[in-house]
């Protein structure tokens, strides 16, 4: 079970909680489960969410495993200049 921390814009979707517990083995599964449990995640996922796993930010590697007890943060997918 991964503890997934949310930034402020996502918290209203889960009733204001700072984080949610999700059973997922990798980023792909994490997004799938979040969209199933909280349909309001869908537009955010479509716009793009990055996932920080133990401090390393993944934007595209959805196969990336979520190790047990990993520190996981969902973050906006930032643009660049």
């Amino acid at each position, binding site marked *: 079970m991964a503890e997934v*921390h949310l*930034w*402020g*814009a996502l918290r*209203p979707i889960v009733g*204001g909680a700072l984080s949610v517990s999700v059973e997922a083995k990798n980023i792909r599964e994490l997004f799938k489960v979040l969209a199933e449990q909280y349909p309001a995640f869908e537009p955010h996922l*479509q*716009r793009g969410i990055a996932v*920080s796993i*133990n*401090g*390393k*930010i*993944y*934007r*595209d*590697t959805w196969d*990336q495993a979520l190790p047990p007890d990993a*520190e996981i*943060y969902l*973050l*906006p997918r*930032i*643009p*660049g*200049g």
Partner: protein
Amino acid sequence: MPLDTNFTNQKFKQVGTRPLRPDGVDKVTGRAKYGADYNAPGQLIALVLRSPHAHAKIKKIDTSKAEKLPGVKAIITSADLPDLTGGDRGMRDMLENCMARKKVLYDGHAVAAVAAIDQTTARKALKLIQVDYEILPHVTDVDEALKPSAPVIHNDIFTEGVEPKPTKPSNNNKRASFGHGDIAQGFKDADIIVEHTYKTEQTHQGYIEPHACVANVSPDGQGELWVCTQGHFVYRNQCAALLGMDISKLRVTASEIGGGFGGKTHIWAEPLALALSRKANRPVKLTMSREEVFRCSGPTSSTSIDMKIGAKRDGTITAAHGVLRYHGGAFPATWAEFGAMTAFACYDLKNVKSESIEVIVNRPKTAAYRAPSAPMAAFAVESAVDELAKKIGMDPVELRIKNAAKQGTQSSYGPVYGPIGIGATLEAAKNHPHMKAPLGKNQGRGMACGFWFNFGGQTCADLNVTPDGTVTLAVGTIDVGGSRASIGLMAAEELGIPYENVRVVVADTSSLGHNDMTDGSRGTFSTGLATIAAARNAIKVLCARAAKMWDIPEDAVIWEDGHAKPAGTNAGNFPPLSIKEIAAAAGNTGGPIAGHNELVADGAGVSFATHICDIEVDPETGRSTVKRYTVIQDAGKAIHPSYVEGQYQGGAAQGIGWALNEEYIYGKDGRLQNAGFLDYRIPVCSDLPFIDTMILEIPNPNHPYGVRGVGETSIVPPLAAIANAMSNAVGVRMTHIPMSPPRVLKAISNRKH
């Protein structure tokens, strides 16, 4: 293929040297082809009719007179660009920004476009198009737009990120927050608190080359686009989607680029050129004027930021709180959110909160600008931190060192940091000779820190060994700052051949798989990763071919210094085979020799910088002159140090312009007053001192050579560094950027009275 990232104490033969860039001769001799340098036989010239109003309903567009003008071959309005976006709000906004639909949303918004046999005819045609507008109230100021009395620009925008969801539309499309701890308690624990509202005005990236393209769409549905862009694959995908074309049918070739800095990551006029070409059945050239670039491409946000930071008398920051309001122009965006993410990232804070408020105004659609959103946030934070140091009576560098984030710090945006370089840049600043140099009359010294994320993205590279053993390398990221040289160095390093034997080209979209844009400081990082992997794949092939030539097993061959060698005495006693010899024999050992790679380059690693600035202020006129400027930044590993230094200097120069002079000025009528370089003043060489640089190399553990992106972070600290220098020079704390002479003079005058 997983890359070996064991870079520790790696010895390089070519990486870290400073050869000439492959595009250098063409650029200094005028041979290089930029966007407007392309021409196609029979091409038409396109011009765009733009709204003179900041906000208005389009009641009717009558193009009939213009259509009858001899020489006019096609006219388009939004009717020629049906909405094919399938409910995708981002794409729909992009379409509407390219061509207004029911309303014009800003001064300069396109309403129609003409393709004619020449510019004179096209200009005449524009004058014959009649647009019937119903003028609506407008708002161009970021704070005014949030007031209940402000005209609501989109009636389908309801603030996202708040509960309960609003029932009334507004100009605030989103709110978000980041942080941890208890800021209320943190401020209670503080001995000293600094609190101000800071404002920054809208600036343009100021690239010298205006947007330009030539579009050519055939009746069979195939199309070509030659264009100046930071991302030709992304332009291809977006244009094809908006025009209902198969992506594979549109081939996009990127020109050399005369600056982008984020402003060429969005499509603006390219879909119009393609639609005109499709309608006229002729190639169409569309080049924006400088005025159009200012009025209707994508400048950055203007901002308004409430900043509050508290500290103990020993300099320990106990709490930090920022509320950041950024506008996205006339469309919903999330620029404030990125500002909120970066604002406090340099510091190790127990109690921190940054809140973002996104605002919609009647200005052009905001685009990314080098480390988008970070410079404005850093201006507020670093100004407040500096004032805090003054109030405490502590050296501002020491205060920052005391509170600097380090490995293991929980960042203000959430995750815990790995190895990072903020502390090292601060220590380097503290010990830099610049900090001890004497200052003259009316001169002051300031310093500030900055942070940017960097990222990687989808990337591929295609390396081919030619029959004479030299190498061609096709990449998909636009070279905005010397990346072809850096990528060539990495290929040469891996293959063990001279840099001069590698030719790097930016391939068109039909020659290579999809590549994301050159943004996020990703060019050298991500295409470098793909290149290293492609070269290693080619080396495997080279070794296999040598094995055939020697008739020994493939795994009995190793690659060293550009040669295949037997792995040991048991493999046989053969003299090394050079890449030239293996390439010459390729036709009889299996055919062409190549190495490819496709990857998503996650793990770019965050970046930090510290800047030091000396300015002199003329108290009679308020004019400021930058006397000395030093950039200290972590590059991870500088592949080509000259181009790393160039990025540091370029970012600082742009930041200096932003800090001191650059500003979009809108009249009460909502029209832009200064759409040209005479009235919108970017710094030229004579305005700037030599910008000194110091490259730190704290390797990124996610890259085989330790590379981090370097392109953007250098624009983050200048606004605050200069404001802090101004405070030390003439004793005025400027909270409004730009610190233009009239504003500074007013502040000096207010202080005296």
